[in-house]
């Protein structure tokens, strides 16, 4: 037990927790005023829903004693035996409960990310049912594969420092399924869907950036040189992605936008997540530069492809996570973290292959299962609010509230 590491991971857990309200604001500012509360609510309530699910079953499924490499057993249901003693396979220096609660925040934010795909049109009850199923049947197993003691992708040697695959690709694939299943918002292509409050979005981006230091540096599970390295990589990739998103936008559209800066930051944070603890600062810069360009183009491509992923979960988290996971296969270096591996640019092309496999498995599993689950919930409850309710706005019709009464 090391109190410094415990302090660091507990504070990191608090930082990651703050990312969910941060995301709520990031998303909330981008929708129209009539849907601001419904959008925020779908994030905020996940703190509670997934928080409880995690304690009851999720943690056990994701990190519990391995069952065939694919899922954790039910031994730790209700956090049985998850106490002050460290669990060595995850960390020898912090209480097991500290690791558990740190990971809880990851499960929460992952589910929250997806909500951007169906913003402004999904029923609250259907949302609750779907997300519970998704977290239990998709997130928990995937987390086990990659991070769980005995997980098969971990066994393969796939690297995912803080969740490029588990969190972002996973959420992005689910978001794509959701956008396809749910269809366009009313008025799509005809009306202007203009963000109602961009300062709120920027505030959200600021809180996300802040919390992400806990996400990535905290994933070192110790307050050491590795944590510092991950912290630095996180910051530099994010900086670079802001610049490259803005530069691309400036070239393509003629003006750099504030929403572009915020989006670029998130893209950079996403892309560096899997790599944070495996790459040096200059590699992180390059990963960030790539993220800003690729995600911006992915967002533009959405319009061409014609699906309505309201807040660009696919373009930012899916594509950013994909780039980050592959980039880990390019830029990872044992000089930075010898518990990791060397990537293509450091003489080991095999890692890129392994990363590609991990990515592919996750995309296919997450997309297919999400698609099926959405169809099931649609059949049972209906996924979309009534047309009139959508026009009137979900704040009033789903929650009987108004965001603003100025």
């Amino acid at each position: 037990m090391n109190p410094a590491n415990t302090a660091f991971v507990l504070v990191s857990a608090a930082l990651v927790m703050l990312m969910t309200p941060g995301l709520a604001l990031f998303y909330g500012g981008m929708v129209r005023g009539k849907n601001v509360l419904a959008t925020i609510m779908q994030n905020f309530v996940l703190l509670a829903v997934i928080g409880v699910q995690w304690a009851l079953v999720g943690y056990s499924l994701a990190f519990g004693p391995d069952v065939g490499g694919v899922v954790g057993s039910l031994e730790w249901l209700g956090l049985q035996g998850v106490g002050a003693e460290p669990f060595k396979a995850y960390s020898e220096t912090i209480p097991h409960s500290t690791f558990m609660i740190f990971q809880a925040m990851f499960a929460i934010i992952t589910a929250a990310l997806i909500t951007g795909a169906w913003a402004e049109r999904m029923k609250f009850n259907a949302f609750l049912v779907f997300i519970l199923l998704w977290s239990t049947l998709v997130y928990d197993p995937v987390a086990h594969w990659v991070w769980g003691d005995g997980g098969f992708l971990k066994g393969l040697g796939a690297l995912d420092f803080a969740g490029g695959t588990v969190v972002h690709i996973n959420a992005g694939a689910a978001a794509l399924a959701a956008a396809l299943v749910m269809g366009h918002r009313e008025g799509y292509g005809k009306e202007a869907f203009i963000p109602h409050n961009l300062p709120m979005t920027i505030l959200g981006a600021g809180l996300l950036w802040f919390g992400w230091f806990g996400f990535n540096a905290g994933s070192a599970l110790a307050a050491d040189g590795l944590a510092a390295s991950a912290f630095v990589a996180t910051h530099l990739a994010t900086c670079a992605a802001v610049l490259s998103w803005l530069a691309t936008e400036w070239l393509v559209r003629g003006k750099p936008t504030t929403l572009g800066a915020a989006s670029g930051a998130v893209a950079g944070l996403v892309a560096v997540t899997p790599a944070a603890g495996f790459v040096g600062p200059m590699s992180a810069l390059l990963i960030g530069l790539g993220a800003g360009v690729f995600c911006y183009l992915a967002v533009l491509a959405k319009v061409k492809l014609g699906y309505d992923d309201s807040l660009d979960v696919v373009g930012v988290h899916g594509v950013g996570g994909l780039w980050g996971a592959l980039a880990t296969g390019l830029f990872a270096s044992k000089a930075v973290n010898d518990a990791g591996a060397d990537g293509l640019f450091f003489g080991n092309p095999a890692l890129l292959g392994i990363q590609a496999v991990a990515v592919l498995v996750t995309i296919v599993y997450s997309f297919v299962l999400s698609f099926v689950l959405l169809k099931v919930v649609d059949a049972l409850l209906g996924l979309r609010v009534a047309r009139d309710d959508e026009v009137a706005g979900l704040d009033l019709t789903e929650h009987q509230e108004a965001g603003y009464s100025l």
Partner: protein
Amino acid sequence: MKKIEAIIQPFKLEAVKEALHGISVQGMTVTEVKGFGRQKGLREVYRGMEYQVDFIPKVKIEVIAPDDKVETIVKTIMTAARTGRIGDGKIFVSPVAQVIRIRTGETGDAAI
């Protein structure tokens, strides 16, 4: 000249605008207003207290037009704004004595 004022449902603004463009009415002025009428407002709930919001958000469109266009404009708005449900709104027509375009000083029909 006449002033045509229409109080309509906010989500019909786009359609009405398009329809007016269709009959070559380019200029209009729009105001956000609160409507009270037969249509009942929604209830909002805050910490268990329920409030009947008695007004409904509406949009007021004002168009100044030469006398001979009034009828077409009124009909066009009616068709485009209609859903058939309570709360569709009203159109009022009233006299206007003079119109001036600030930029040029033109007056009367030429200024519209």
